[in-house]
């Protein structure tokens, strides 16, 4: 399976290439007032409204401000409906609506088997981390989009 890799801060992350619709230059993000800052805001993708996720905040947490931001890149994801049949057969899933991941830099495509990814180390408690893998001496983290989204959904305690 091929993975699209990208940098968020200094860290390398990956998602299955089949989930990626396109990589693009960032366009204006319209923030959502009073909302979870991990949701960067809404964007206008050629007439479609999509939700942009601020990966720096979502994946780096409190460290996001400490590390300087580079040029951003938009990773536009397929929706569950637009995923190819092969992708679905491989057990991949995306989100019902179009999502845009705001990363710092997009790296290349890495070929790997799912089993080459080791389970996340014990101290990593985030549910959206599917596994870790060493690529050129560097640690790469595999992300699960559905679980990331789930993490970002407003929870009952939060709603007033």
């Amino acid at each position, binding site marked *: 399976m091929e993975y699209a890799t990208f940098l968020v801060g200094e860290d390398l992350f990956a998602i299955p290439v089949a989930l990626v619709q396109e990589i693009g230059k960032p366009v*204006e*993000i*319209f*923030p*959502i*007032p*009073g*909302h*979870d*800052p*991990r*949701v*960067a*805001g*809404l*964007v*206008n993708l*050629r*007439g*479609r*409204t999509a*939700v942009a996720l*601020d990966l720096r*905040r979502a994946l780096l*947490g*409190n460290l*996001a*401000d400490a590390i300087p931001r580079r040029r951003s890149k938009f990773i536009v994801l397929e929706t569950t409906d637009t995923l190819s049949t092969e992708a679905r057969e491989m057990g991949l899933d995306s*989100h*019902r*609506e179009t999502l845009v991941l705001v990363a710092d830099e997009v790296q290349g495509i890495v070929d790997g088997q799912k089993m080459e990814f080791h389970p996340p180390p014990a101290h990593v408690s985030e549910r959206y981390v599917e596994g870790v893998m060493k690529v050129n001496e560097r640690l790469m983290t595999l992300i699960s989009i559905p679980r990331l*989204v789930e993490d*970002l*959904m*407003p929870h009952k305690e*939060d*709603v*007033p």
Partner: protein
Amino acid sequence: MDAETKELLDGFVVESRENLELAQKKLLALEESPDPETLNELFRAIHTVKGASGFFQLTTLGGLAHIGESLMSKVREGEIPVTPPLVDLLLKTTDTLLGMLDRDDLGQGEEVSELSGKLKATLEAGAASATNSDESVAPESALPTEPVPDIPDSDNTSAPQATPPPPPAPAPVVSVPAPSHPAATAAVHHAASAPQTIRIGVEVLDQLLELIGEVVLGRNQLIVSHRDDPIFKGLSRSITRLHQHVIRTRMQDVGSLFERYRRTVRDLSQQLGKKIEISIEGGELELDRTVLEGLSDPLTHLVRNAVDHGLESAEERSLAGKQVVGTVSLRALHESGQIMIEVEDDGRGVDIERVRVKIVERGLATTEEAATFNEKEIIDFLFHPGFSTRDVVSDISGRGVGMDVVKTNLERLGCSIEVTTHLGKGSVFSISIPLTQAMVNSSVISGLIVGIGSCTLAIPQMAVNEVVRLSGDDRRNRIETVHGREVFKLRDKVIPLVHLEDILEIPRTYAAPDGSAALERREKLADRRAGEPLSFLDERRRKLDRRMRTELLIVLHYKQNWFGVLVDRIVGTEEIVVRRPPELLKGRRVFAGSTILGNGTVSLILDIGGMVEMAHLDFADRSRALSAHIGRSSLPEVEQRVVVFTYAEGEYFAIPVNLLSEVDRCSIDEVRKVGSREFIQRHGASVPLLRLEKLLNVTPLDISHGSFVVLTPSRLSYPTAIVAGKIEGTLVLGEDINTKEANEKGVMGTFFRDGRLISLIDIYSLLQKSDPDHYHCDVQADLQNCRILLAEDQLFFRQLVVQYFRSHGIRSVKAVVNGREAIDELGQNPTGYDVVVSDIEMPVMNGYQLVSMIKSDPRLAKIPVMALTSLEGEANVQKGFEAGFDAYEIKLDKDKVLRCLDRLLASKGGRKGL
């Protein structure tokens, strides 16, 4: 069964169901007016079922249909009369057929011998009476292969007159061709009138809606840059039409749901032995089909409830002095951003005290507690599970599981329900559907675009009452704190005030003592989550001193209540395509959806109900507290009052009261003549007298004996007094003014009151005629190209003012009936008008609100706005200018209106009228 046959069978079931349902609907109408086409349709529906059943070997279904068809055949030929028992039988038959179609075995195992028997009996009874007549020619079956009865031999008809006329039996065959070939004609009719339907999945339609939404958004972004491109214009028009049609696939008119209840009411009322009628209003209103479906069960319960519990029996009603026939009314209407569905009955109403007793009996409260409940709280208990005031559980609806389920189901749809009731008079159950539920994804609404901080948001225009620009003075004097909440004094009302930042859960900025702005630090939800908000607290805003900015207050209404929201700026109004809010925004009640504005900005749409919730506005208590604190003031008078006087005996005239400065008596001794003119002394000056007979075709008044009356119009450049005979009194003008008599000669119109014909005088025309040197309208000639938008709700004044303008050659006058229509028209055509002339008191949106909206919209702010009103007095004029009017004139003062128009257009700088 193979796939192909299954598909055919499915098709048969769907089609038969549709035909039978349609036929049933018509059956109900049949009772009122037997209509041959209905009978034909019913026949065809059953006939089709019979025919197809044979193909699929559905013997039970086919058998029942066959007898039904035979019966229908006789009915439509008139052999069997249409009576209520017959309609009942036919209804039962179609019900049974429909029921069979719903079963897996398509009714094969159904027991229908009883029904068949009844049908046969009716058929035979009809046949028996029919054989007595000579009209026994129509064949029973519909097949064209039946032998056609003999046509009379041509020899007979061409024989000399001595031959007796042909026997009556064959003649009808010649002159009535239809019954002899019913199948042929039926087939032709069927082909011509059968509704074409196809089945399509909901997902396909939803995708269509998404796509059309994108197309419209894309088009909207091109409107400005492609303004002059004719190809684009054509494309744009097609897109608009396409959009409307696609929306309609998901929307359905409420009437289709309401109509089903005719049957319900009829059957139920018969069953209970009551006389009840149903009335349906607002059926044209459209809703999303899924919402409509969701309303079906609750409405059914409410309707049955009204018939069973609400309405009394005929005897009870007549004893109570009510009309014997009770009414259940179903209504759908649009109101302040909500759609209301109402079920009203004129029955007994809810007995509050009886409910109070039941509450205690059911153990839901103690007697002491129950005693403190007010009417609304008691009614709320009706929706409590397990509550029912019926002692005997009836089959109909007294089970006590009804109302709470209704409420829960409605809440699941995002709707709410309220009850208003009057003991002895009836009850109204009101379901309110918020706009966001009723709207279909990709529908277009009018939105007011506002800004707060760097954020742009849209507010559904239909919830907006008005926009108020607050000056520093306003902030000091009109904002107060009551019970810890900020409120705003809006004319005669006091409304709660809300900061949009609070609703959105973002920090407010305020002016710190050293002049710089700072953010309010508050412990709130955002703090609990990771990190700080991303970017909208931009540097520029932080540096602004809030005190210096003009604050804008948007007055919104939610159901019957008003509240105000403070925003930073108004961007304008736009037609926006509503998109569902993204899933990641679930739980933010304040957002109803999102849209993309013409300039590409993604803007969230605010939900009024959500705003009310986030601001914790509780209107019920609030109104009590506020009215106690502030005290109420009454609304200004809207009526146009006239003085009625007689001239010569029997001729009545009227002049608007607010155009007169004095009314007093005079005697002939005071009159001085100079030539043919007459004068009296008033306030140290000679005032000429105006006699009506000199200008109008009326009987002359003899003032030589005794005293007479003079009426002095106000604000005249050259004072004149009008002679009158006797003052009869004053009255309020109604809508019933006949303007056919209106002409240049001095009469604006006529009307009747208490059997008397009264002529309404146009003072200024009279003056122009009597004193042309002093009174003439020196309006510039190029005023004629001026384009006027007039907002006036009363027909008479609308006609009058339009006539003012037309009589001076102004051709382009568009009249609308309230402020909302005016702002909509301006929204669609912002450069189409040179001046707006508006009444103050209008329904839906009044003149103050209209001018506020015009002056806040950058596209429209430069258009001069003239207020035309019946309200006189300094205070009103002041209020008018404060609201933003450029000029303020009295409706019936034509001269001034035209001069004012002139002035406004001149000051605009060149009257191009382009």
